């Protein structure tokens, strides 16, 4: 070095050498972390499952379905003919509640709606993206049970989302429907179980009624 005197010299302490392995860990770990983030973090399985919003009326499926034994179709009566399993009109509630629990404060919104004709604002639980076209009638009439996607609603005080409803989850069933099929008339049963091996039983059902679930994009996205 030229004339300028010996400058202050910074020396890395001994322990810095022991950081070496950690460097490797970081270099390998970071990409892995990012991948996992997209894979699991981005999945409805983590974001949506267990979503159970509070409803304007604390309607209990457990009470109405399990204890009173209502069939799904009593309220969701369009499920076999329409793409949507419509939320029942206030009228449907009043069929019974005109006489039963007419004073219950919990039912106030219902009575108001019936009086004013203004709808009750239920909160949507099973919420597919707007670009997904799911058709209830197509599934129910092929013998895909409600319970397959909605879970044991008859056990729910407050309805919660049990299935991820992610694209991958849909595809799993569309590619291998057998274990998920049942006789159409059993579609709304919460307790039905296949006689014997579900897969084998489902295979027979599928071949019997020529069920060919499509995995083409436009089946769900239009």
């Amino acid at each position: 070095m030229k004339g300028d005197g010996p400058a202050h010299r910074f020396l890395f302490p001994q322990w810095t050498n022991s950081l070496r392995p950690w460097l490797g860990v970081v270099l390998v770990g970071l990409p892995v972390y990012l991948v996992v983030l997209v894979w699991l973090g981005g999945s409805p399985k983590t974001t949506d499952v267990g979503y159970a919003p509070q409803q304007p009326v604390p309607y209990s499926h457990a009470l109405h379905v399990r204890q009173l034994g209502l069939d799904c179709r009593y309220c969701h009566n369009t499920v076999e003919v329409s793409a949507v399993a419509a939320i029942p009109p206030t009228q449907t509630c009043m069929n019974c509640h005109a006489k039963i629990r007419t004073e219950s404060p919990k039912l106030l919104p219902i009575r108001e709606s019936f009086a004013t004709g203004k709808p009750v604002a239920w909160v949507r639980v099973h919420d597919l993206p707007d670009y997904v076209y799911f058709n209830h009638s197509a599934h129910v009439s092929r013998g895909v049970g409600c319970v397959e996607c909605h879970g044991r609603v008859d056990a729910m005080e407050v309805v919660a989302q049990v299935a991820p409803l992610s694209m991958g989850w849909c595809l799993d069933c569309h590619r291998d429907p057998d274990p998920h099929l049942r006789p159409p008339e059993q579609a709304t049963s919460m307790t039905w179980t296949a006689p014997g091996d579900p897969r084998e039983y489902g295979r027979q059902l599928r071949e019997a009624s020529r069920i060919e679930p499509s995995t083409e994009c436009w089946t769900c996205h239009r």
Partner: protein
Amino acid sequence: MRFPRGLAGKGVGRGRVFGVLAEFETVAQVLAAAERVRQAGYQAFDVYSPIPIHGLDEAMGIRTTRLPYLVAAGGASGALLGLALQWWTNAVDYPYLISGMPRFFLVASVPVAFELTILLAALGAVVGMVVANGLPQLHHPLFALEEFRRASADRFFLCIEASDPSFQLDSVRELLAAAGASQVLEVER
């Protein structure tokens, strides 16, 4: 040719010594010195220079590195990974119809496979070199010496380390001085 003041006479505890460092002016000198040190039977010694010195490998008796095999392995795995990736994703896991082409289309798979080959091979080369050289090693006894800073600029050094079985402070110092070192220094650990 002088002995550095402060070191003369004082018996320095061997445990605290890392080695003895000699400074040379030219490539020729350090080459010769290296030859000599090796013939003197030392193994734990190294030459430090701002540029790679030709013939030094022979002079020091460095065995040729096996890095190329690592690189070859990297390349091979890259190629396989590339082909496997494209075959599994597009033909097995989620097959779709594209312009009436085969689901696994070898011709179309070449570019990606090729790039991955290069990528992994290159990573193999760099990572291999860095790891084999024990880098990064931010702390080293030599860095403590003011004189050693010129090792990266315009001076050539040879250091015989205390870890060498036949290391004798005085004899080593002698040897290096005789090899034409412009100065000889003791390096503390």
